Each structure stands twice: as structure tokens, then as C-alpha cells.
């Protein structure tokens, strides 16, 4: 019943993007987000969309698979559009009714904001589509390693993240087994009032929590008996190492950022608002 849920949305194929160091991909995501925020006007959005398409092509992830990530934000996008299109007060409205005022400028603005949001979600999902959760954790640990100097327990946080990631599939499997055991005693998950249905999940949640706590206790004991202590600089079994491709990746990203900023500044300076507005 529950097994279909896969963690995150990693799409396992071998591609240039998959092979990149997670730190490069983190940096790339950051740059891309910046460029989406800077972009404006038709040409701007066209460029960032094309960049997205290009990276998707390189990553060998089917577009339809990436689109599934949009499902969860479809309502937010819709709300954004409605708020902007119906309540935008800048333009000259052709319909005005109470607080609602619809203008061409408002609709344009709404469309632009929705496109921006969609690009942000799709763009950053490339990171999770091409990086396993564990790689991502290591990448984040490295990238934020400098925070150790400010007494942020970076390693511990990373450890917590990877343990959580490790446990999620186990807990999903256990939920499945518990649901089957309780269904065999007649638990009914699909009928009755909301309150009744919520109550029907208590026989699932309690064994799940007890098992999770027991597992956590066992794990802590196992770690302690192997002398795990916090607060030491720990080395990795498979340390992240930059390759030539990663260097090229950084270079491409820097050039992209530079060009994008230049284009934006030039257009600002020459007063061509096509790139700027919205």
C-alpha cells in the first residue's frame, strides 16, 4: 500500500549532471534561482527557460518525470496568479468590482509571477532529481562546513539528516506491515466521519512510534559501543573529491552568472525596460 512512495524524487540514470559533485549542483541551483529572480520580460524568461531545458536534456531525466514535482505546488501557483491578476492595482482596470480589479498589466504580472514560480520549482528540482539524498547531505555538510567555526554543529546536523533518510524507507515498510496486521483485525480506513477515520489511524501510529523509538535506541547503543562521540572532526569513507568536470561546471556557472548580470545591467542602463519590467 505504502511502498510506492519513493523518497525524494531521485531519478537513477547516468548523466553528466548526475556525476557532478553535489556542491557544484548546490551552487548551480543557487545561481539559477538568482537568475530567475533577475529575469524579466519575455526575453529574460525565454533565456532562463532555455537554460532549464538544456540542463534537463543533459541530465537525461524525462521531462514528464520532472513535471510530477509540480503537482504539489499547482495550488500555490494558481493562488499566485489569482492574487496578482485580480488585485493588482497598478494598471488601468477594464473590470472593477469592489476590491477586485482586473487589468492587462495585472494579468501580465500574474502570468510572470506564476512562470517565475514554476521555473524556480522545476529548476531546483533538477538538484534532487540528479542527486541522491545522501550525496546531498554530504554536499551540504561540506558547503556549510565553515559554520563549524561559529559553533554550528554541522556534522551532527548532517548525521541527523542521513539517519533520518536511512530510516524513512524502513518506517514506510513497517507502516505497510502494521496496516496489514490491523486490517486483519478489521480496521476500516475508508469509511466513517473524519474524526472516526483519524481515530482509525491510532492503531497504526502507536506501533509505528514504539518501533521507531526502539530502533533509535538500538542505533544509539550500537553507535556508542563503537565509540561514536560528537564534536570531533570525522573523516569520510568516500570523501567528496572535485574532478575536472566539476571545475568546468563551476566555470560555466560563473560565466552564466556574469553574462546574465551584464545583460541585465546594460539593459537597465540603456533604459530598455523590456528585459526589466515585471
Amino acid at each position: 500500500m505504502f511502498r510506492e512512495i519513493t523518497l525524494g524524487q531521485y531519478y537513477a540514470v547516468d548523466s553528466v549532471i548526475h556525476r557532478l559533485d553535489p556542491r557544484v549542483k548546490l551552487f548551480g541551483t543557487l545561481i539559477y534561482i538568482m537568475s530567475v529572480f533577475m529575469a524579466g520580460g519575455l526575453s529574460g524568461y525565454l533565456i532562463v527557460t532555455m537554460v532549464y531545458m538544456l540542463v534537463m536534456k543533459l541530465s537525461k531525466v524525462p521531462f514528464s518525470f520532472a513535471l510530477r514535482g509540480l503537482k504539489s505546488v499547482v495550488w500555490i501557483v494558481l493562488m499566485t496568479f489569482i492574487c496578482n491578476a485580480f488585485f493588482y492595482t497598478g494598471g488601468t482596470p477594464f473590470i472593477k468590482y469592489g476590491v477586485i480589479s482586473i487589468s492587462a498589466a495585472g494579468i501580465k504580472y500574474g502570468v510572470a509571477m506564476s512562470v517565475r514560480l514554476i521555473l524556480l520549482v522545476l529548476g531546483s528540482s533538477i538538484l534532487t532529481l540528479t542527486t541522491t539524498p545522501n550525496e546531498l547531505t554530504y554536499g551540504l555538510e561540506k558547503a556549510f562546513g565553515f559554520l563549524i567555526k561559529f559553533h554550528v554543529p554541522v556534522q551532527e546536523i548532517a548525521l541527523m539528516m542521513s539517519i533520518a533518510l536511512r530510516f524513512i524507507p524502513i518506517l514506510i515498510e513497517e507502516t505497510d506491515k502494521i496496516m496489514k496486521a490491523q486490517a486483519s483485525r478489521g480496521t476500516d480506513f475508508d469509511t466513517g466521519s473524519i474524526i472516526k477515520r483519524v481515530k482509525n489511524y491510532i492503531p497504526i501510529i502507536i506501533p509505528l512510534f514504539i518501533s521507531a523509538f526502539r530502533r533509535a535506541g538500538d542505533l544509539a547503543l550500537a553507535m556508542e559501543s563503537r565509540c561514536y562521540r560528537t564534536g570531533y572532526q570525522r573523516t569520510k569513507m568516500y570523501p567528496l573529491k572535485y574532478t575536472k568536470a566539476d571545475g568546468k561546471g563551476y566555470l560555466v556557472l560563473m560565466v552564466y552568472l556574469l553574462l546574465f548580470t551584464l545583460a541585465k545591467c546594460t539593459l537597465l542602463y540603456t533604459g530598455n525596460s523590456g528585459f526589466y519590467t515585471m
Partner: protein
Amino acid sequence: MIEFENVSYGYEDNKKVLESITFKIEDGDFVGIIGHTGSGKSTLIQMMNGLLKPDSGTIRFRGENIFGNGYNLRELKFRVGVVFQYPDYQLFETTVIKDVMYGPMNMGMTQNEAMDAAKQALSLVGISEDKFNKSPFELSGGEKKKVSIAGILAMNPEVLVLDEPVAGLEPEGRRNLLKLLEKIRNENHITIVMVSHSMENVADYCNHVLVMNEGKLELNGTPEEVFRQADKLEKMGLSSTVAYYIMRELEKRGIVHDDRSITMKEAYGCLEKLL
């Protein structure tokens, strides 16, 4: 009363876990299912109460296709009670008695009826009254197992299906539990299906044995028919019973002749005659 006809099944990863399984369980049978780990035993029994739906083939309970249109699958779960391998997956209430009452209450019994059913089931499995109001989480592993069995027994099913019921119990606990199963089979006329890794237990108590191997039903017959095929069993990573091997050895040395014993009891009877 339970019929499988060409039942096949695979989990999401599409590997075939069950392949064209056909067998029939009669009213009042004590069925033993044996097989190597991963051979599909647990998957098989989860189909008996409709928890898993076969990819192809039909399952009938008392002649009716349980996945046919309009069949009440929820009621089937009360008629075919399945006890899972690990009691931790089902215990959740604050007290033992309440936990056992959970199934009967789901059936629509009143508080009092459920209480009676629960008390009866608990004393049947040998949980003493002073433990009724304890938290199920304070019990030992074996006691938890008994409570989980009582939780299904209290629903008074027509078939009781158990996945490795004696695993984790000491010899006496095993014997008591198996004796109890035999008793409820004889007195309450409940059909019993038991998955077990103990050839001895299956030979001693069952009258019908199913042998699973890599998703196929390899052997299907009486304990005598099955356990006399020691070669086949060994090829599947199983074995025949200790008594069978002893008697074969004695036969080789010319001490016994034409013996068909597969249980210790039978072997003992045969040897006693010789003395």
C-alpha cells in the same frame, strides 16, 4: 473451504513471488506450510484473507471468489483470521484486554460481548488474569505473541492462519501453543493454517502439508507423502524429519523393515514392538 487456482503474484518490482499456485484446504484441516526463507509463504497467507490481490488466478472461500464483485472483503477478515509473524506490529492499546477486544469491537460486538470474547481468548492461550490490565508493551516476547494470537482468536474466525507462531518460544511454550491449536481445531472446529520452519512440528500436528520453493508449490499432500521425499526436500534447502532419517538408517542396517514412520511417536511405536 479455501481454494487457490493458478494464483500468481509479484510485488511492485515485478519479480514473480508466487507462480501459478493451486491447492485446496478442507474444512477442519491443520495445514502446515514449509519452505525456504523468501519462498513466498508470508505472501501466500496474506492472500487468504484478501490483504493481497493476486495478479492472476482466483481464490475462493467457501466456493465464492473473494475478489469477485460485491464480495465483502472486510467481513472475510473476521472469518479468516491472520496472525502475523511479529506481534509488535499489532499491539497498540493501553491494556492487554483492550487490545484483544479491538478485533471483536470492529466486528460490531458490544463492550460486554467483546470483553467476554477477549477474556475467553486470553485464557485459552494461557495468559493469566493478573496480566489482563497490564500494558501489552510490558510483556515478554512470548507473551506478546500469545496476546496477538488471542487478538485474532477473540474474533472467533472459521480459519486461523498463523505465520511462524512458535518462533521465539521455548520448547514448552511451543508445545503448549501447538497443543492449543490442536485443541481449538478439534473442539471449536476451526481450520488451522500454520507457517513453520520446524519439520517436526509440521509432521507432528498437521494433516496436510504445502511445500513452497521459489514461489512455486513444489509438494502438496499428507505429511507422510511429503516427508518421505527427503531428497526433494533437501534440494529445496529443507529436510525431512529426524525420525525419518533415524528409521531409514535402521532400515539400511536391517533392523526395521517396511517402516513408514515420520514422527518420533510413530518411530517409537515401531521400535517398541521390536523390543
